[in-house]
């Protein structure tokens, strides 16, 4: 068991998360190892939202009165805060959506509905190709399938290698002049694999394809700096990075956003509306139809503050240490197989595994009886599981508040699970 870093005071962090004191049974404390599905919120995030709502709430961008001014300031300050967190050159590159899923849908829809005034680069059409990977979350796969269905384009994918990383040996033939988009996850929500962003960006650039990065599982766990990643568009979720549900982020290079047709339409995204036609505002407003998730933006900004105060490098180091501890511990249990690149030191956040002969649902049930809240199933990455002949896996995921003792409890719990089922004749 590796001790948490000296600067990273996990006990102090835990005190910020009210939910962590929950008991599941009178003698079973809750051990939350499902931050990969959704994170818990520190008091600072809850308080920021409540403070906004009890002091400054009003509709944004639409009012001349002072409350509207206060609300608009809160909302736009949150945009600046998120831009800063992501290293974005301008807050105008940050679009608030309801989730990473909506951000990815926004991109996929926008690329399918352009007209003569839209640059070819931003129009996916019949015969074009969209390249994804075999490890994608459904959120970064199904919207592309639907785009392909609507336009006559084709979805191709970079397959998995046996070692749970991408098999990019055929990348040269997968990326062609027909490739319009390469969409891939930064870090797999199942495997923990961190993808080679630079190599994929280079391949995309060589044919003028757009790159779309699903950062839902990296932004909460490691520094994500859009100014150096080289990708064109990035999606992420508020609720996976200590922020509220109901908010996500699309980051995009301004010169692209500026040319992309709107997705959702309605109030606040228009320039002029007539009964028979309308024109649209500049980004980010163009992509934020209707009343946005205002208090949620404020909460997300507070989450960025919280994470930045810890330091994303430190967060990554903390979670890498826990990940290595879990990998080592679990690998020592008979019948347990790690599904993911066990040797990768970069990986953070999640460890998935298979218990021979045991359905993950049954594994999860036994772990739950011990207070261990882990996720079981295909984790919205069904093709990935199918590729490895699995119906599902059990996944433990780590957060800023996870302790080495909790990881020990996980390892002991899995050992107990194996024994438990072994005990039946």
């Amino acid at each position, binding site marked *: 068991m590796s001790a948490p870093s000296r600067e990273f005071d996990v006990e102090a962090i835990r005190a910020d998360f009210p939910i962590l004191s929950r008991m599941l049974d009178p003698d079973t404390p809750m051990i939350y190892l499902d931050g990969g599905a959704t994170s818990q919120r520190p008091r600072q995030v809850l308080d920021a939202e409540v403070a906004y709502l009890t002091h400054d709430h009003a509709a944004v961008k639409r009012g001349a009165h002072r409350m509207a001014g206060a609300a608009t300031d809160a909302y736009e300050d949150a945009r600046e805060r998120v831009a800063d967190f992501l290293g974005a050159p301008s807050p105008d590159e940050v679009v608030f959506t309801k989730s990473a899923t909506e951000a990815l849908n926004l991109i996929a829809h926008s690329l399918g509905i352009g007209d003569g005034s839209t640059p070819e680069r931003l129009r996916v059409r019949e015969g074009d190709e969209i390249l994804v990977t075999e490890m994608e979350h459904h959120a970064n796969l199904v919207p592309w399938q639907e785009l392909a269905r609507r336009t006559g384009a084709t979805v191709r994918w970079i397959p998995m290698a046996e070692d749970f990383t991408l098999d990019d040996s055929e990348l040269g033939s997968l990326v062609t002049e027909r490739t319009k988009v390469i969409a891939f996850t930064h870090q797999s929500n199942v495997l923990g694999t961190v993808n080679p962003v630079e190599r994929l960006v280079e391949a995309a650039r060589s044919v003028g394809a757009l790159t779309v990065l699903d950062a839902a599982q990296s932004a909460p766990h490691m520094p994500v700096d859009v100014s150096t990643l080289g990708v064109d568009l990035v999606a992420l979720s508020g609720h996976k990075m200590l922020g509220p549900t109901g908010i996500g982020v699309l980051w995009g290079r301004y010169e692209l956003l500026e040319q992309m047709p709107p997705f959702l339409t309605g109030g606040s995204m228009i320039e002029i509306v007539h009964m028979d036609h309308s024109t649209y505002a500049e980004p980010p407003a163009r992509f934020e139809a209707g009343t946005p998730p205002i208090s949620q933006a404020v909460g997300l900004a507070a989450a960025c503050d919280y994470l930045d105060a810890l330091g994303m490098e430190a967060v990554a180091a903390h979670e890498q240490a826990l990940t290595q501890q879990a990998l080592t511990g679990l690998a020592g249990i008979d019948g347990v197989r790690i599904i993911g690149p066990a040797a990768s030191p970069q990986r953070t956040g999640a460890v998935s595994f298979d218990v021979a002969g045991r*359905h993950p*649902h*049954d594994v999860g*049930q036994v772990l739950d009886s011990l207070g261990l809240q882990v996720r079981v199933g295909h984790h919205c990455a069904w093709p990935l599981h199918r590729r490895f002949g699995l*119906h599902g896996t059990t996944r433990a995921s780590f957060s800023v508040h996870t302790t080495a003792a909790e990881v020990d409890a996980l390892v002991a719990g899995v050992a107990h699970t194996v024994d438990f089922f072994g005990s*039946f004749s």
Partner: protein
Amino acid sequence: MSTHLSALYTELVIEHDKRPLHAGLREPFGAEVHHVNPTCGDEITLRLQLSADGAERIEDVSYDAVGCAMSRAAASIMADLLIGRTVTEVEPVRAHFEEAMGSRGRVEGDEDLIGDGIALLGAAKFPARVKCVLMPWKAYQAALVETRALGA
């Protein structure tokens, strides 16, 4: 070990999971259905064969189930409850089982009606598991609708 857990994974459930009754896909059959639980990826393929005499006697229920112990045991127990009886006879069994499973533990379950199905009721307190246990029954119902439609 928690009491919840021992209520779920009884010897009987584990026994049905390990050595499921009537498992495998057989001929003849009137209809075959394939059901999936999208949350966990569990699947069942189920075939139903009714008597040709109009009495709707269930001559065979054969199946291939991929899933957790609860769902596999549920399929095994269900097949054993169904085979040899008429659709009309088993309807109260199905209805009572579904009611008890959906009751979060409030409905006790009548062993005379649902036999080994009693062993599955521990799952009633776990909403996520209720679906696992009911999936074979949903498949049976769908196969029944289809068999009737094909026969008509």
